[in-house]
């Protein structure tokens, strides 16, 4: 049964570019659910990444409320938000963005101890399990530069998974990948999204992703122009 992971109530976001204030995200209310592969699509500059970073507690909204587990997190301090991010969310970036100076295993373990302390054997075991699951165990000691783009992206997914996140937030993870690597990455993400305690949100304009989506939110000019959950289409789909 899908559960609501994050709720956005009338969220807006403005940016000041030094001369004028631009409204990048108009009043948006929606819920992000577990056990769902949500795709946020739209043309460049439509506010997709802004919406993703607001969901991921990276950007603070200009107005509105963000609720996680019935707790309003809008006004939490930067440090509290960082801790929340670390515990609840996993991030997969466009170019994987692994730390090039540390090896694959260390990259995966970063979110476990970036706030201090040391990595426990349990966490190390979990990282090994993730690597095994993603077919990368033989690359544990390899440096990111030694991997292909697809392998790097899978390491990034493993890194995002290390803290058992409620949501995996992905920013165009397939845009730099060939068809074969994209398929592997998307299959992996789709599988992860089927867990009842986890959801996947992906920002993309890659049409190869759309068939994987359980829910597709379309944005244009900072406005949600299509969301099956709010239009009722989703319910109709389920009834069918």
């Amino acid at each position, binding site marked *: 049964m899908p559960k609501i992971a994050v709720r956005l109530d009338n969220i807006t976001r403005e940016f000041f570019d030094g001369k004028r204030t631009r409204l990048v995200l108009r009043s948006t209310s929606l819920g992000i659910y577990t056990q769902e592969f949500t795709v946020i699509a739209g043309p460049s500059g439509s506010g997709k990444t802004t919406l993703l970073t607001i969901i991921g507690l990276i950007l603070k909204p200009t107005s509105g409320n963000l609720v996680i587990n019935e707790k309003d997190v809008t006004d939490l301090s930067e440090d509290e938000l960082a801790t929340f991010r670390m515990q609840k969310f996993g991030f997969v970036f*466009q170019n994987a963005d692994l730390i090039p100076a540390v090896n694959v295993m260390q990259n995966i373990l970063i979110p476990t101890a970036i706030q*201090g302390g040391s*990595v426990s054997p349990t966490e190390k075991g979990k990282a090994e399990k993730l690597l095994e699951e993603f077919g990368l165990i033989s690359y544990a000691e390899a440096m990111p530069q030694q991997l292909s783009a697809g392998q790097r992206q899978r390491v990034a997914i493993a890194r995002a998974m290390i803290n058992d996140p409620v949501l995996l937030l992905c920013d165009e993870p397939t845009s730099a990948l060939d068809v074969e690597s994209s398929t592997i990455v998307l299959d992996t993400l789709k599988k992860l999204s089927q867990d009842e305690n986890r959801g996947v949100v992906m920002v993309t304009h890659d049409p190869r992703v759309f068939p994987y989506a359980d829910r597709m939110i379309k944005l244009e000019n900072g406005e949600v122009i299509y969301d099956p959950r709010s239009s009722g289409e989703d319910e109709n789909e389920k009834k069918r």
Partner: protein
Amino acid sequence: MRRLVAIKILLHDRSTTAGAVLGVVAIIFLVGQQLTIFFGLLSFMSALVDHSGADVWVSSKNTDNINAAGSLPIRYVDRVMGLPEVEWAEPIVSTAGVYRRKDGKFEPVQVLGLARPRLAGGPWRFSEGSIDVLLDYEGLTVDQLNLKIFGNPRTEDILEIGESRIRIAGITENIRGFGGTLVFTNLNKAREISGYPPDRCSNILVKFKPGTNASLAFGKLRGLLPKAEVLSTESLSARTRIYYLTNTGIGSSFGFSTMIGVLVGIVIIMLTMYTNVLNRQKDFAVLRALGARKKDIVVIVFYQALFVALVGIFVGLLLLAFFLGGTRDSRLPSYMISWVPPVHAFFTVILCLLGSLLAMRRAIRIEPASAFR
């Protein structure tokens, strides 16, 4: 994990890290080298006093430094010897002379004449001979570091200072004075060389008997010699050093060059560490997005600064040790007091951390959202 990430990022950016380490090496070596020369000069200034073996130096009134003492009546020696606390009292004569080399060239020298047979205040390290060679009327010692300017004389060479015949009887090891090129001989030869009056001397060296109450004995000596300066060895040594530091440009010159060394080092550290952060902006943004707080980023840059400091200090001190070893037997005054390197290293760590403040400031301003651009 923070420490690991910090060090690995540093090692990954080898060229900028090498630049930062170079900044620390510059501070350690340049400042350290200035300090060794400074301490070397300081040790020269008061070397004669420090190695005299006396407890007290009696000089003419208002003596500011050992090399600029007036003269005292020699009868003061008997007065001092009259005190029950005194084990021995010996006069010395410090005078100037002109040394004539074998090739006929001349060299000004500072002649120190010592009273036989004790030869108190005499040289303390020899590469050839011993202090006893000064018991001989014509005996004179020169230092191995001055052999070249003396025309490379050898022991048993007969030469002249002023119009007086002298015999090179011994060669001292690295005993240099600050007031001129120093040679040692006995009191009578020194008087003969310079025509120093027989009833006068430059200083009187006094040694107290073991167990003597020094402050009481000093009081007695001062009462006995109201027209003379009665100073402990330590006081005269300090007074001599302070005189040269404050009345010559040595203090300010070394202070200035030390400051330049520190400034150059700190600017190099500041710029290279800042560049390091600029080069790794994306990494810092990713770390922030993954949950690193601002303080975690500060800790990472702190570890980086500490690592750079420790490596730089190690290399700098190694170079300094080579420098000290290489200049030990040279004319370059170099000497290091044992507590100075750790203090120097400690302050360098502080400077390094200060130098990293700009980088820290830049690093914590990196927004996690920039990981998505």
